[in-house]
Structures are given as C-alpha cells and as structure tokens.
C-alpha cells in the first residue's frame, strides 16, 4: 500500500457522513494527491518521495477531516428545524382533526382530562419556545457559509428539547383522547385512533431522525465569520437578546399572558375552578424559564449546564 492509499484510508476513517458522500470526497482527494505527486515527479523527485510530499502539502488527516465534517455538520444543522417544524405541523393537524370531528360536549372535563390537557399545553409551549430559539439562530446565520460548532450545538440542543417536549405533549394528549374515547360513547373513535397513531408516529420519527443528525460540533467550536443579513432574519435573535437583558420584565409579561390564557382555555365553568390552572401555568412558566433559560441562552447561567449537549 502506498503513501496516498494509507492517507486516504485514515481520512476515510475520520469522515463522519454518508458512504456516498465519503466516496465523492475520497475520489477528489485522490485526484488531487495524484496531480500533486505527478508534479513533484516532473520536478525530479522519486515516486515515493513525491507521494510523501504531496500528502504533506495537503494537510494532516485530522485537519482535513475536521473541515469536511464541519461542512457536513452545517448542512445537517439547517435540516434540523425543518424536521421539527414538519413534525409539529403534522401533530397539530392531527389534533385539529380530532377537535373538528368530535361532538360538542357541555359537561365539565374530568380531573384526568384537565391534567393531561394542561401537560400537553405546557409541553407544546416548551416545544414552541425551544423550536423558535433554534430556528432564530439558524435564520440569523442563514447566509453565512460556515456555521460555528457552537451554533450547531445550540441548534441541535434546542431542536431536541423541542421534539422531546412535542413527544411528551403527544403522550399527554393521546391519554386525554383515549380517556374520552373510552368514557364518551358519542366520540368519533375512528378519528381518535387514527390521530393518536399519526401523532405518535410523527413524534417518534422526528425524534429519531433528529437524534441521528451528526452536526460534528466537537470538531471546531470557534466562532465563524457571520455574513450580514437583512434584519428580518435576525429578529428572533434580537428578541432573545432583549429577554436576556431584561429577564425579569420579560418573564413577568410572559407569565401573566400564559396564566390568563391557561385560565381561559381550562375546561371549567367558573373562575374559581380555572384559577388553579392559571396559577399552575405561571409556576410552570417560572420553572421553565429557570431550568431552560440557560440551556436556550435566554438568561445567563451560573453553571456550565448550557455547554452540556
């Protein structure tokens, strides 16, 4: 085995991408190294020395693999929000299908239904906030040729939180619908069963696809040059910046709106019955901001938890 083949084998082992893409890269590198070796030979170098010089001038296997892997990781990072958005839209559509197909029921929902509905709403809220955070970062870097390893880590983390929350929401709302199908004789059981099947399949597929995405962030974590982009693309990042600067005011506004909204949506008949859900929503919002704030870069962290992938 000659020097070029050894180099290509080592590079092959370090490239983190599909086999087809690896083959394209390795063919291209082989052609380059053969050209470089031929040039060395034409200048009078012996064949074995020419190959060594060609490989040396090309760069270390680690450095070159990092470059290709980062490039592939950047591509994968842009796919992540699409997977999350498609999953979210499909789950939401399935929920709408159930809502439209069920007969009107004027009786007060049971405690189990209220709890599962509350959990699903909370989970969807977390999914939405995390998804928006990840999508904001992607939008603000959309025109930049390179995305830094830090950006890729952030987007992957935000999207995974988003899809995990969506999956939790699916489980909660599925339990709610199952309960309804069992206890309400007038419910459209066929639509409920189909919707549950669609929601669980979509959430599981999305989560699986996202967790398989290799963003290769550990190869380089330094910041990359950011290409200037129209302000509309950086709107999300600007809002995140404002939240970070004024966390208490932002949290107060969000918690108030969320609490009132929860009371409005609670399937209860009186204000007194709705009040606990409003309070629970405010507590959940505060807790969510405290726990997820540093991870989603919405507030400063006193620990290094934000760096954990």
């Amino acid at each position, binding site marked *: 085995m000659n020097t070029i083949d050894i180099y290509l084998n080592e590079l092959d082992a370090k490239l983190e991408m599909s086999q087809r893409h690896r083959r*394209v*890269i390795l*063919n*291209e*590198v082989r*052609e*380059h190294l*053969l*050209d*470089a070796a031929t040039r060395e030979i034409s200048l009078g170098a012996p064949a074995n020395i020419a190959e060594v010089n060609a490989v040396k*001038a*090309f*760069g*270390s296997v680690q*450095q*070159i693999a990092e*470059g*290709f892997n*980062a*490039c592939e990781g*950047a*591509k994968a990072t842009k796919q992540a929000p699409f997977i999350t958005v498609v999953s979210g839209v499909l789950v939401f559509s399935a929920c709408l299908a159930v809502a439209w197909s069920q007969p009107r029921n004027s009786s007060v929902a049971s405690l189990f239904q209220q709890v599962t509905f509350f959990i699903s709403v909370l989970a969807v809220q977390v999914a939405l906030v995390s998804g928006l955070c990840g999508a904001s970062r992607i939008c603000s870097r959309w025109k930049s*040729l*390179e995305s830094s390893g830090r950006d890729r880590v952030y987007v992957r983390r935000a999207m995974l939180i988003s899809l995990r929350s969506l999956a939790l929401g699916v489980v909660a709302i599925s339990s709610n619908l199952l309960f309804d199908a069992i206890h309400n004789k007038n419910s459209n059981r066929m639509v409920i069963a189909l919707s549950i099947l669609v929601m669980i399949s979509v959430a599981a597929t999305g989560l699986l696809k996202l967790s398989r995405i290799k963003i290769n962030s550990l190869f380089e974590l330094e910041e990359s*040059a950011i290409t200037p982009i129209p302000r509309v693309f950086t709107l999300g990042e600007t809002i995140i910046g404002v939240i970070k600067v004024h966390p208490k005011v932002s949290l107060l506004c969000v918690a108030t709106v969320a609490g009132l909204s929860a009371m409005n949506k609670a399937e209860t008949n009186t204000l007194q019955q709705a009040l606990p859900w409003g309070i629970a929503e405010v507590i959940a919002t505060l807790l969510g901001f405290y726990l997820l704030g540093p991870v989603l870069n919405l507030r400063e962290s006193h620990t290094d938890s934000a760096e954990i992938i």
Partner: protein
Amino acid sequence: MSNQQIKGHLEAMVLAILESGPAHGYSIIESLRSESDGLFDLPEGTVYPALHRLEENGLIKSSREVVDGRERRIYQLVPAGLGSLKESRAAWQAFSSAVSRILVVNPS
C-alpha cells in the same frame, strides 16, 4: 499571513478564481498560490471543504468529467456566486481602504 486570516477570505478568493472559468480543485489551489506569489500557503486540502461549502450554498456548481482516463470534479461559478463575489469585493474594498487610512495616517 496567518492561516486564520486567509481562511476568513478563502471563499471569496475561490469565487474570484472561478470567475475566469471552470476549474478543478488542484488548479484552483495552484492559482491561489501563484496569484499570491506564494504568500497564501494554506494546507492544500483546506480548500476542498471551502469548495463544498460554496456548492452547498448554491454559489458554485460542480460536474464530473473524465480527462485522460481520470475522473475530475470541475467547479463552475453560477450567477448567485457572481453576486456574492461582487458583495465580497465591495466589503473588502471598504474594509481595506479603512484599514489603510488608519495605518498610513498613523505610522509608528
């Protein structure tokens, strides 16, 4: 000149080289070296990820050609790449003239 400094402008330089016509990776690297009088002496392999990034972002396109029995990947500038090159040129001219003004006006 440090590799990091070159890296920040590598894509724009590759686009500029491809402006004069399609080329394969090896000849792009040769052009980079000769046009810079040997100043840009990056590890040759670092240019290929840049080429892949440019292609991924729709600024260049590649095609495969067989030359002398060997398969070559030829890169070619597309209109979006030309637009990006014009933007990079304008940004560089503004940046370099500003730096020059400061360095020339304030010699040590």
